[in-house]
């Protein structure tokens, strides 16, 4: 454990439950580094998660933590934030949790633009249940429930977030941690719904089934297949083919929900009978 971030962990709860080679821990480190960089008060910060591998992170984090039901983290977080807008609210979720069972909450949370910081750990698979395909498993990928290859098409979840009205959308991966920390940090600064897709690797259930090599090979795959938005903007279309674009993909501020609600209270508080 790095001494400078130890205060953000419940060290007595470690070691974590994640498999060897899983990159969830790397992403969690970027989250706390971003929180530290932003200078957020731990007492005033709530981290909400759903159900799945990545959602177990809340148990290890030394904040007000809320480990909820499958897919519903954003809805619980909405209640926390609206009831007390002074709290900084983060949501940790996985690809199954957020984009499948929680898909409706995701698009509506993006649309509503409440000041929530959402980090989606995308490992392309349901890990906790042992390797079933998710809405973010690539076409053709194998999973225990897609033994002959996945015939569905995956979401581009960042595009869905943008289309749904998210005011800040970024993508990073667990190889380029400096970038990942930066985009989470910039999301904290956005007053509104901030969404970060963090590409994770699951060597045990996804990697093994799809012959992607060991944990290091899967990290190298992230390195070799992701390009930054700045680099992508300079490349001709044919050179971008098959590449995953990382960085800040969208930032367009809009009125934030709890701020707008407070305006209603300020105007109507004290009025009783009509």
């Amino acid at each position, binding site marked *: 454990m790095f001494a400078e971030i130890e205060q953000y962990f419940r060290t007595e709860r470690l070691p974590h439950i994640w498999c060897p080679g899983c990159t969830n821990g790397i992403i969690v480190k970027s989250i706390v580094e971003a929180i530290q960089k932003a200078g957020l008060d731990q007492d005033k910060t709530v981290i909400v998660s759903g159900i799945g591998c990545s959602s177990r992170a*809340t148990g290890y984090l030394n904040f007000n933590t*809320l480990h909820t039901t499958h897919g519903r983290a954003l809805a619980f977080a909405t*209640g926390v934030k609206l009831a007390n807008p002074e709290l900084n609210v983060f949501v940790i979720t996985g690809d199954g949790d957020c984009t499948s069972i929680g898909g409706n909450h995701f698009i509506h949370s993006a649309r509503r633009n409440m000041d929530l910081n959402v980090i989606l750990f995308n490992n392309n698979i349901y890990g906790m249940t042992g390797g079933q395909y998710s809405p973010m498993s690539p076409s053709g990928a194998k999973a225990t429930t897609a033994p002959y290859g996945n015939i569905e098409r995956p979401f581009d979840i960042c595009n869905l977030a943008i289309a749904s009205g998210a005011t800040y959308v970024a993508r990073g991966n667990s190889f380029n941690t400096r970038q990942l920390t930066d985009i989470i940090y910039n999301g904290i600064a956005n007053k509104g719904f901030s969404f970060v897709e963090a590409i994770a690797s699951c060597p045990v259930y996804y990697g093994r089934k799809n012959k992607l090599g060991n944990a290091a090979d899967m990290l190298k795959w992230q390195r070799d297949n992701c390009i930054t938005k700045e680099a992508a903007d300079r490349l001709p279309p044919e050179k971008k083919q098959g590449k995953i674009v990382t960085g800040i993909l969208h930032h367009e501020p809009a009125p934030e929900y709890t701020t707008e*609600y407070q305006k209603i209270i300020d105007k109507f508080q004290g009025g009783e009978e009509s």
Partner: protein
Amino acid sequence: MNVTSINARLMQGNQACAEGAIYAGARFYAGYPITPSTEIAEVLAERLPQVGGKFIQMEDEIASMAAIVGASLTGAKSMTATSGPGFSLKQENLGYAVLSEVPCVVVNVQRLGPSTGGPTAPSQGDIMQARWGTHGDHPIIAVSPSSVQECFELTVKAFNLSERFRIPVLMMLDEVIGHMRERIVIPAPGELDIFERKTPEVAPSQYVPYEPQDDSLVPPMANFGEGYRYHVTGLLHDDTGFPSNSPAVMGAHQDRLHEKIRRGLNEIIMVEEAETEDADVLLVAFGCMARSAARAVKEARAKGQKVGMLRLITIWPFPEEALRQLAEKVKAIIVPEMNLGQVVDVVKSAVEGKVPVYGICQADGEIIPPERILEKIEEVL
């Protein structure tokens, strides 16, 4: 009291429920439109900002239930309201609130089911779902008002019980009570008791979130944001709040959840008896059916028949003791209910064959009229 100072109004049950929530100190509501409960949301959308509270229309029923749990964790007294299909959708997160001991009030204005059923037709068909709708063994508190006045006052009590015992409390209205308009006297501020949840008296470093501090077995609850950083989960856990697979820990957690309610039964159980002293026949009724039953008692008495009523205000936990005592005295029990036999079976089980129990069960969206109850009384006497 000066007559002119009485705050008497003509009000609908749903509205009285919403106003009762404000009186109780509710400051957060999340909901989704559904007939016949929507007026509760409409009233609170207007009223909550007036008292500095928050209203939000969520994307669905599941999200509404989740949001009130999140809000309650910050210290806000929280409520949602729904009906039939929406009540089904809320069940998983209702169980979450039971297990993680987060106070909240859930109103279910019962309509005829199953499925979409009869959206505008009254029913009392969700009594068993209220008890067992979420999976796993769990305690629950459910109460049922029979008048508009009681919609107001029982909502206040529902919040008190919820905050006192750290458990969701279900307000089981039915469409008749929810949409009926009658005279209501709004209690003056301070007239009804308001219970505020117990918060920890120790420093954050000493706080063990799920460790009871007294015989009530209800642990003090810290609000998020006040320095007590702790973990809330839907997993069975120990007193620290962290999950455990140990059978001893999981069993102890389950036991405490049930035992805290058992120890509170005197506060939780509410019933009302009418004309039971010399009764040969006892009517057991709740919600709108208690109104038909009250009429039947009056008319039977006018005919010289000794009929009384036990009105269930609390339905879960079931008021078994009150019923057993009356079962010793009466010759027959009749349970009129707007379902095909839910409470009647619980009554039978409670009286253990000491006295015959008859149901008048109907699920066609119509109120069971006093005449049908009177016919049954003739039959059993």
